[in-house]
């Protein structure tokens, strides 16, 4: 019956989940630099945060501009808890302190959520923005709790070591994060398969009908937000352990905007979308940010391209190939894709050149006109680099258009063939 039908999918599910766990466990063994570990830890915390955000945006249809409130307040409560534990005020294992963050997220979800979830759509978005600003203002007003500009610092290495685990070395913190990521991810996925999770979809798609099958849409949205606040709080608690400091930034609008960006880039319509989005987002922020000052510009361009050409996010781009794979038609795509990739790289090189030269010119031209890019050294005050960069960009743009129309034709063919195959 019902369950039989999903058996083949379940196998795929095991592969995806097992693979995810394996990758997370193995990655730091392959890349041992401290930089990678920092990035991976950041991604881990980000994944929980983005998935909790997607309970609202993807599953519940609630566009929130203030989700950092729940993770940030969770982080603040965790930091105070850690400080109290180290003073000996009470005993609590560090491993479980993210639960304190989760509890704080839940409580504030109850308090703020009751108001925000009364309405959906634009009203919800505006109220969430207002509450975000309000909490951020509070963080600068109540310095005792929020620590003002400096924030509140803590020390995660407290209590006796358990099996050699002190959470001193960052690799131990990384694996703590991995453990929480797996548990939270499984829990949030399980939630999508519960009556409340399904009714959150129903309320997202057609709130009026949901009311006429017995559901109070306010209550569905409210409970969804409270649960989402719980997981956001856990993410906050983990970030507190990871950085050993919590500042007003943790509840700020930049954090709230970042999680929206990451979720959208990854694909809000799919459970795994925010996971992909978080990986892309933090790679852009941290890895690209370490190389160039223009990282935010590139992130903005990526966001723009995704909104315009792939509103379903990376997840939809990946999943649209599943039927093609099943129909064994992928070979029709390889050539156009290779062409699109090659021309795309030219376009990207052109874009990067223009952007980097412009940044260098506007920021450092007077003091250090010399710069290096792609192994070439040149002066940004000369005309030549500008001409080459612009030429590369324009040329890349033109050949890319040809390559993309080839991709489009290949897809038209494939859809045509697949329609013939299935009456």
């Amino acid at each position, binding site marked *: 019956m019902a369950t039989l039908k999903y058996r083949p999918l379940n196998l795929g599910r095991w592969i995806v989940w097992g693979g995810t766990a394996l990758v997370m466990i193995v990655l730091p063994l392959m890349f041992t630099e401290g930089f990678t570990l920092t990035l991976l830890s950041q991604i881990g915390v980000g994944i929980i945060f983005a998935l909790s955000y997607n309970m609202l945006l993807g599953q519940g249809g609630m566009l929130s501009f203030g989700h950092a409130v729940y993770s940030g307040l969770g982080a603040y409560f965790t930091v105070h808890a850690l400080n109290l534990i180290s003073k000996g005020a009470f005993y609590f294992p560090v491993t479980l302190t993210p639960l304190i963050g989760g509890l704080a997220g839940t409580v504030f979800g109850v308090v703020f959520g009751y108001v925000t979830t009364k309405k959906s759509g634009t009203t919800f978005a505006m109220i969430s923005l207002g509450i975000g600003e309000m909490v951020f203002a509070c963080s600068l007003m109540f310095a005792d709790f929020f620590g003002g500009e400096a924030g509140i610092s803590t020390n995660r290495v407290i209590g006796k070591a358990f099996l050699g685990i002190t959470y001193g070395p960052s690799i131990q913190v990384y694996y703590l994060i991995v453990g929480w990521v797996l548990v939270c991810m499984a829990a949030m996925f399980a939630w999508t*398969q519960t*009556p*409340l999770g399904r*009714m959150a979809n129903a309320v997202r798609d*057609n709130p009026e009908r949901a009311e*006429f*099958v017995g559901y109070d849409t306010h209550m569905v949205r409210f409970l969804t937000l409270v649960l989402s606040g719980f997981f956001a709080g856990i993410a906050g608690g983990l970030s507190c352990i990871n950085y050993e400091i919590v500042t007003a930034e943790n509840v700020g609008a930049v954090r709230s905007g970042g999680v929206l960006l990451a979720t959208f880039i990854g694909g809000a319509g799919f459970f795994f979308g925010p996971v992909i989005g978080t990986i892309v987002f933090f790679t852009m922020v941290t890895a690209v940010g370490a190389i160039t000052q223009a990282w935010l510009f590139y992130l903005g361009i990526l966001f723009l391209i995704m909104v315009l050409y792939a509103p379903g996010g990376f997840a939809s781009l990946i999943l649209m190939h599943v039927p093609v794979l099943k129909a064994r038609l992928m070979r029709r795509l390889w050539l156009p894709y290779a062409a699109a990739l090659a021309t795309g790289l030219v376009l990207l090189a052109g874009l990067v050149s223009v952007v980097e030269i412009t940044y260098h010119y506007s920021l450092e031209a007077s003091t250090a006109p010399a710069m290096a890019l792609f192994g070439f050294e040149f002066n940004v005050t000369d005309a030549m680099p500008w001409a080459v960069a612009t030429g590369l960009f324009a040329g890349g743009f033109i050949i890319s258009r040809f390559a993309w129309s080839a991709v489009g034709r290949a897809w038209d063919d494939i859809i045509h063939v697949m329609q013939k195959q299935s009456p």
Partner: protein
Amino acid sequence: MSTAIELKGVTKSFGNTAIIRGVDLAVARGERHAIIGPNGAGKSTLFNLISGRYPVSGGDILLNGESVTGLKPFEINRRGLSRSFQVTNIFQRMSVFENIRCAVLWSLGYKYSFWHRLGGLKDANLRAEEVMESIGLKRRRDTLAGVLSYAEQRALEIGVTIAGGAGVILLDEPTAGMSRSETADAVELIRKVSQGKTLIMVEHDMGVVFDLADRISVLVYGEIIACDAPQNIRGNQAVQEAYLGTEAAA
């Protein structure tokens, strides 16, 4: 207690415009009752008042002897009244099966549960399969509701309405826009699913009305001008003038 639905002096105005101007109506338990009337008579508005979509301006509505006036749609639904819509109102992005399962969850007591796994809810899944069977959409089980044909969507609309097992069912123009053969199927479906329940329907197709209804109320300009068995309505002079006459002439 044999009255399923009772309206006492129900009125509804939008601004200065009175749409429903004092409706008294009692529908017995197990009765199939049709409401007919010309366009703009207030038939759909009356449904919206009974089901709690709009608040009444005056009067009282009783469901199984208890007042439901001023209650929200979900509260009225939980007391055993379910309705369909004139314009198909289903969960377009969900499969047929998911649509119906959403409609049975509350009545089976799962409410806002986030500790039950949907796949493991034997009663809900069984009930959803049964409803799909009865509305003839079993082979469309995993099709998204949004891509069903019009007649199939109308059948699903009825399925979602009856799935929760409500004792009182309101159907708003269930056969509107259907072909003759589709209408005949819909009539059989309605007859089947309303077995042992109280049915109130708004319908334009006189064939459907005279075929299904035990009693008919004629609503003209927000007032019920006649309420009687079909054969008596057919012979009623006032109804002829106000409604059936124009229909026959058209």
